[in-house]
């Protein structure tokens, strides 16, 4: 039995039936990591010793009858994006600015994972401060796509996506601001679920763009992202933006596709979409139609505003959120004769080019004389984009789009072309700006054997229904073959 290939629910069931113990799961995972990590490079930090200790402790705990009932993620080995604060491991956000930084507290999401019986294996690589779509903007190294080591896994949560795709962990935690979980999920052939804004507490997630940042899980099945989501979601006194609405629990049952109204916004299928991606989306829609779904062609006229809007708002908030990295209290401090010199030298040495670019853009769009033309205008555009979704969901139950207009691109291909890099997010940005839930599912491979992702988008607070629909769509597709590593 290859324990690294199993979903969380099966692993937990095996624990309940005592077919294996947590130490065996952990040993299998660590063996797989030792085998593939040198070529994939998904992790910034691995915590083998503490993982083995935690496994032993959990096994002891599971000796008690029914102990597992209170642990919905019992035995789930989890890789966590390095943007989440963890007491036990460093938190660098992929930046030199936080090299060696140790947070004095655990993020709410990390606390809830551990409370549910999950075990942290390590912190995964990411574009610095989550700014990027390829994980090449990590200050440490680039992560490789398990399906083709010359290509990027996407980003910014590329390390977490690659870890799940390469069977180094069944589930992983990422953060999705404009597509940072859905896009790498698509490029690495795994499931990435971005809940609606505020569904999971952001406390302890190092902020990139506060009004857009969403804690989001990766897994290889819809059922597994659902399990992680249920364990993490719900109000948190430490995050005032966490929504109060109750989270519906219980086992996930696939929705019947018969009669389901599937909206296909034509603005997402423009000329930028690669033929292989367009074909895979069409094939998936054909399967849905065959299963009785009604496919509705519709227009979301403000979709084109999402890019310009996002690339004003996210840098604006980032320029503010990253002001705290000043060398005074923690992180890097570059020596200088006086205070202003220290600020300048620290931020120059600590931040990479992409982060500096976005801080500059953000500072500019908030400046006196420009704030109305850029920031305020972008806020208005955001409201229009959100309206598009409200209108669309009056006509359909779910929206279907490509997750990424392309499959995985070659390492270095877009590194020096920021605008081309920004294209990677175009299908994922609108749902982020509207704050609605969205999920990326693997629906096939292109001619080069690279995964294609399909995005399903649901209405606000419609996470449960979206996941039920996703489970139904997932069942229409054959599981992707694992990468050969």
């Amino acid at each position, binding site marked *: 039995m290859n324990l690294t290939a199993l979903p969380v629910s099966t692993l937990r069931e095996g624990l309940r039936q005592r077919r294996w113990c947590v130490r065996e799961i952990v040993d299998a995972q660590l063996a797989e990591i030792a085998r593939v990590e040198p070529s994939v490079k998904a992790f910034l930090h691995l915590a083998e010793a503490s993982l083995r200790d935690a496994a032993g402790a959990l096994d002891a705990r599971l000796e008690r009858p029914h102990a597992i009932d209170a642990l919905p993620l019992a035995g789930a080995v989890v890789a966590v994006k390095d943007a989440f604060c963890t007491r036990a491991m460093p938190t660098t956000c992929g930046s030199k600015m936080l090299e060696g930084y140790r947070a004095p507290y655990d993020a709410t999401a990390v606390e809830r994972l551990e409370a549910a019986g999950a075990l942290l294996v390590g912190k995964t690589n990411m574009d610095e401060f989550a700014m990027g779509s390829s994980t090449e903007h990590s200050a440490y190294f680039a992560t490789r796509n398990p399906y083709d080591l010359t290509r990027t896994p996407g980003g910014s949560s590329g390390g977490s996506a690659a870890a799940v795709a390469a069977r180094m962990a069944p589930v992983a935690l990422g953060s999705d601001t404009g597509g940072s979980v859905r896009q790498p999920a698509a490029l690495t052939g795994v499931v990435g679920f971005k809940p609606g804004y505020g569904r999971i507490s952001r406390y302890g997630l190092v902020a990139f763009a506060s009004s857009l940042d969403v804690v989001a899980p990766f897994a290889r099945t819809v059922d597994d992202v659902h399990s992680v989501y249920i364990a993490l979601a719900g109000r948190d006194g*430490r995050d005032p933006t966490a929504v109060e609405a109750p989270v519906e629990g219980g086992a996930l049952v696939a929705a019947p596709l018969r009669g389901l109204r599937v909206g296909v916004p034509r603005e997402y299928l423009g000329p930028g979409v690669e033929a292989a991606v367009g074909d895979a989306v069409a094939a998936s829609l054909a399967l849905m139609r065959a299963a009785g779904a009604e496919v509705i062609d519709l227009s979301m006229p403000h979709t084109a505003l999402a890019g310009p809007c996002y690339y004003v708002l996210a840098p604006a908030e980032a320029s*503010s959120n990253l002001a705290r990295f000043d060398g005074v209290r923690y992180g890097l401090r570059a020596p200088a004769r006086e205070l202003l010199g220290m*600020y300048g030298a620290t931020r120059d040495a600590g931040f990479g080019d992409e982060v500096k670019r976005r801080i500059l853009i953000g*500072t500019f769009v908030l400046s006196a004389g420009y704030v109305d033309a850029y920031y305020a205008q972008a806020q208005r555009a955001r409201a229009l984009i959100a309206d598009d979704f409200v209108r669309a969901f009056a006509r359909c139950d779910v929206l279907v789009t490509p997750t990424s207009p392309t499959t995985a691109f070659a390492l270095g291909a877009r590194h020096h072309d920021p605008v081309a890099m920004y294209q990677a997010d175009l299908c994922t940005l609108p749902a982020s700006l509207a704050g609605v839930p969205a999920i990326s599912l693997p629906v096939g491979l292109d001619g080069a054997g690279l995964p294609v992702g399909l995005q399903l988008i649901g209405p606000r607070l419609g996470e449960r229904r979206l996941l039920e629909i996703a489970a139904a769509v997932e069942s229409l597709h054959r599981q992707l073959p694992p990468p050969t590593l």
Partner: protein
Amino acid sequence: MSNAYEPVIGLEVHAQLRTSTKIFCRCSTRFGGAPNTQICPVCLGLPGALPRMNEEALVMAIRAGVSLHCTVNRRSRFSRKHYFYPDLPKGYQITQYQEPVCSDGHLDVPGADGGARRVRIVRAHLEEDAGKNTHGGGATGTSEVDLNRAGVPLLEIVSAPEITSAAEAAEYLRQLRAVLLFAGVNDGNLEDGSFRCDANVSVRKRGSQTLGTRVEIKNVNSFRFVQRALEWEIAQQIATLMAGGTLKQVTKTWDDVAARCHVLRSKEGSDDYRYFDDPDLGPLCIEAPLFERATASLKPGPAARRQRYVDALGVTAADARVLTEHPLLADYFEALVARSGDAKRAANWLANIVKPDVKFEGLGARFPVEVEALAGLFARLDDGSLSQKLAKDVYALMRETQRSADAILVEKGWRVVTDVAALEAACDAVIAAHPRQAAEFRAGKKGLIGFFVGQVMKATGGQADPKAVDGLLRARLDPASA
């Protein structure tokens, strides 16, 4: 000062709200703790930490707003104000910019003529305090930052630029301090920085409607210094303009030793703080139950009480002003009146005799004697068994020994001589001893009555009631008119 120019003054006060915990975290706001012992990920600005509103601070902002006759906005917003400084952990301050919690209020400032001038309050908004930098400590010349104060809630109260003299500015501040004390939201302590004032001052040709070049005087830590600094600055500005010079927009600080302002920094080219709504905090909403809860225990403020003391109780305007400097003094006064009647006497005693002995500590106060004890003293005045003159000595002993007036009177044998026969005998003896003065009095030199009263008081060791003695003497010296 040349009469051709008039000053225009606007005041910004940063009042620390006396919550037990900080505005966006649960750290203590206690003053004077060892550096960096009252900090957490939130007020330290650690990556990933998020602010959460302390409702106690909002309650106090509501109380202050109502007390200043402001509109308390049911919905307001927090913004981020960006600048880099080591005492500012996040690189921005969370404050309120376009939508403050309170707006459009006023404060009535008593003038020297006994009337009052109404100064408008433009806004009062919530914000977090910064930490404290200490520079050049030790031989290495390092700077240190203490973040205990970072995140302490402040209410910034901004007046309209319509204060017209340095004296009025000082009085505005005294009144504002009293209003906040009465609302129970600020301890009015200028020394430890929990009540800080910045003044904006310019001068213009009398009658002109345009404002002149403005100078900001920052962080003056006494009302007297504010007045001196403004007087100095106004004179300076007028002298410069009269000499044909021009003024620069600068920030200054008051140096009381040199008795002049110094320039801190030039303000040309205004700072760009890049304000935007804080995405971590939703709108600040005040629902009716919260508003009710905040204002239910709000008692009348100093102005209302002052007016009642004068109009209904007959207290002098000067005494009423002193009594309403602190809520506990006003409460004490009201309790004393309730027990012993005679509000004028109670006011006079409190304002002039007792108040100098009261130890005020922020919102608290330690009185030299209990209300009950002072009422006991007044009871002896009322029944005539104690003279006004002796009463002060008895009070002094009460203050020192914490014993009752009656106990002191018994112990010292300081009963007023009310035995009429004894008094009559004393009067007869004095008249007999001074036949020349008695003859002069009878011949019309009525002023000599004082001499006789004095002699009788001396003979009785000061324990006679001077009024009674006066009557007895007149009856003897001038039976016809008595």
